[in-house]
């Protein structure tokens, strides 16, 4: 049984600068989404339990090949990538179609793991969409996954309750950021990662028939930071401020 992990490359959010409230992505390096690293770790742990391979799938621009090196170094066995600068900025429905096409090319799929939300868009739409396209059962917001032969037991962590669910494989799971602590690859692992097998496709290689954007962005601005930014030197001073603003002694 193979485990598929979907990982997205995102711009390093700490390095995005705002110019006139417009985010500038020029020269900002790409990184793996944080929760996607938890998805990978969950996949690696399942492999340690029940064997098979961990296969990455990702869609993005040409940089994806380099970005995914870190994930291969951390222990993924293979990668199926769609590299296409024209497909760099897909929205959820298009990404889902492309990922589903990749997953169809993989044999003996057991669990398909996604992050609960991507690092930049964080909307949690791609995993459930892929589950629907492939007609698979799904459990989102997982805090625990356990495979027993042909079924898996997954804990879905909701705001007010945990649900323990069982489904036949193959199935789709999206994981929470606190499901595990991702391992960090060593330098030797990173050096060797370039040699791991990769299947690389261009958008035109797949039958994706991307139906055009279902969602487009009209504007995207940083909110205005209108904070006063007054330096406060002591607790006494802080209390006078709180008193002046009416928060103390009401």
């Amino acid at each position, binding site marked *: 049984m193979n485990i598929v992990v979907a990982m997205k490359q995102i711009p390093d959010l700490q390095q995005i600068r705002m110019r006139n409230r417009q985010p500038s992505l020029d020269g900002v390096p790409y990184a793996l989404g944080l929760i996607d690293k938890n998805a990978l770790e969950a996949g690696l742990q399942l492999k340690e339990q029940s064997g098979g391979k961990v296969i990455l799938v990702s869609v993005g621009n040409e940089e994806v090949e380099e970005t995914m090196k870190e994930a291969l170094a951390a222990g993924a066995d293979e990668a199926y990538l769609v590299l296409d600068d024209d497909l760099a900025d897909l929205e959820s429905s298009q990404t889902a179609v492309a990922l589903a096409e990749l997953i169809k090319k993989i044999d003996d799929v057991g669990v398909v793991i996604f992050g609960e939300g991507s690092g930049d868009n964080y909307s949690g739409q791609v995993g459930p969409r892929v589950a629907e396209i492939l007609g698979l059962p799904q459990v989102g917001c997982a805090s625990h996954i356990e495979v027993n032969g042909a079924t898996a037991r997954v804990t879905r962590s909701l705001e007010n309750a945990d649900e*323990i669910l069982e489904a036949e494989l193959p199935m789709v799971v999206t994981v929470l950021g606190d499901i595990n602590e991702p391992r960090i690859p060593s330098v030797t692992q990173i050096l060797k990662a370039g040699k791991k097998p990769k299947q690389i496709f261009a958008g035109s290689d797949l039958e994706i028939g991307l139906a055009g954007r279902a969602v487009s962005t009209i504007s995207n*601005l940083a909110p205005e930071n209108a904070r006063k930014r007054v330096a406060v030197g002591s607790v006494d001073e802080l209390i006078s401020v709180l008193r002046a603003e009416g928060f103390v002694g009401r």
Partner: protein
Amino acid sequence: MAAILVYSDHEKLAPELLTAARLLAGGKGTGIKAVAINNAALAQDLAGRGAETCLINDAAILAADTAAVASALCQAAEKLDAAIVLLSSDRRGKELAGRLAQKLGAGSLADVSGLKAEDGKVQCTRNTLGGATVAVQQIETDKAVIALAARSFEAAPQQAGGKVSELAVAATAPSVRLIETRSKASEAVDLQAAEVLVIVGQGVGKEDFPVAEKIAKILGGEIACSKPVATDKKWLPEDRIIGLSGKKCKPQLALIFGVSGQVQFTVGIRDASTVVAVNNDENAFMLQMADYAMVADAKEVLEELNRALG
């Protein structure tokens, strides 16, 4: 004109969706329909708030089975001639949104905090880039599935009357089995209603929590935290998390101790009226996002504040 359908299994959030639906309909005679699944009380409640409500009663449709719920709602949308489906953006609703949208061939967005009808399309306001920016995004498809963030709209008020009709859908074979549900013990705090929040981050030690909590009490507010304090350290329950994956709050005052101020956190207090931040690193981003910024040791400030206010 096609109708707007609202659905959430969450009793507090479903009435908020009704208000959003009315705003989108803009009094243009667009029908507003609500669906409840295996929850007669919720159906009655929504009907009482003025929605044409349908109850799907079918024990084979398990709330935990996203595929089954999506299939039921897809059939409901078709039968009720709805083009726009509004869901709640809690964990259940976000997960459902993607699956339902794919079934309907609809564009979908989650964590949406504002809505506008524009030339027959729906424009949604939501955070992107991890919370660093606020985007307006338009759904281009004829059908739309939108999950709305809690508290973005007031709950629709109760009116007189209201009738529930039954709706039958074909249940699909179950895709998951529910083994067990374990409710999470927590005293159900309403952070979004608090006027004052005392927020602690990883720069605050566990031993300082009682003091922080006491200060919150004295100021008439609640204690809250950054994400790692709850998810990694488990010092506070997860429903106290402020930020992108926690709560977005609009308190009068946010007193923030030992939080570095990454966007995924600050998005949660962006709408606070007054922000006070205490951090021992003068370069901490949190200090730039504050009205009153104090470079100091959080423990010492908490103790001194407690002595002075207590």
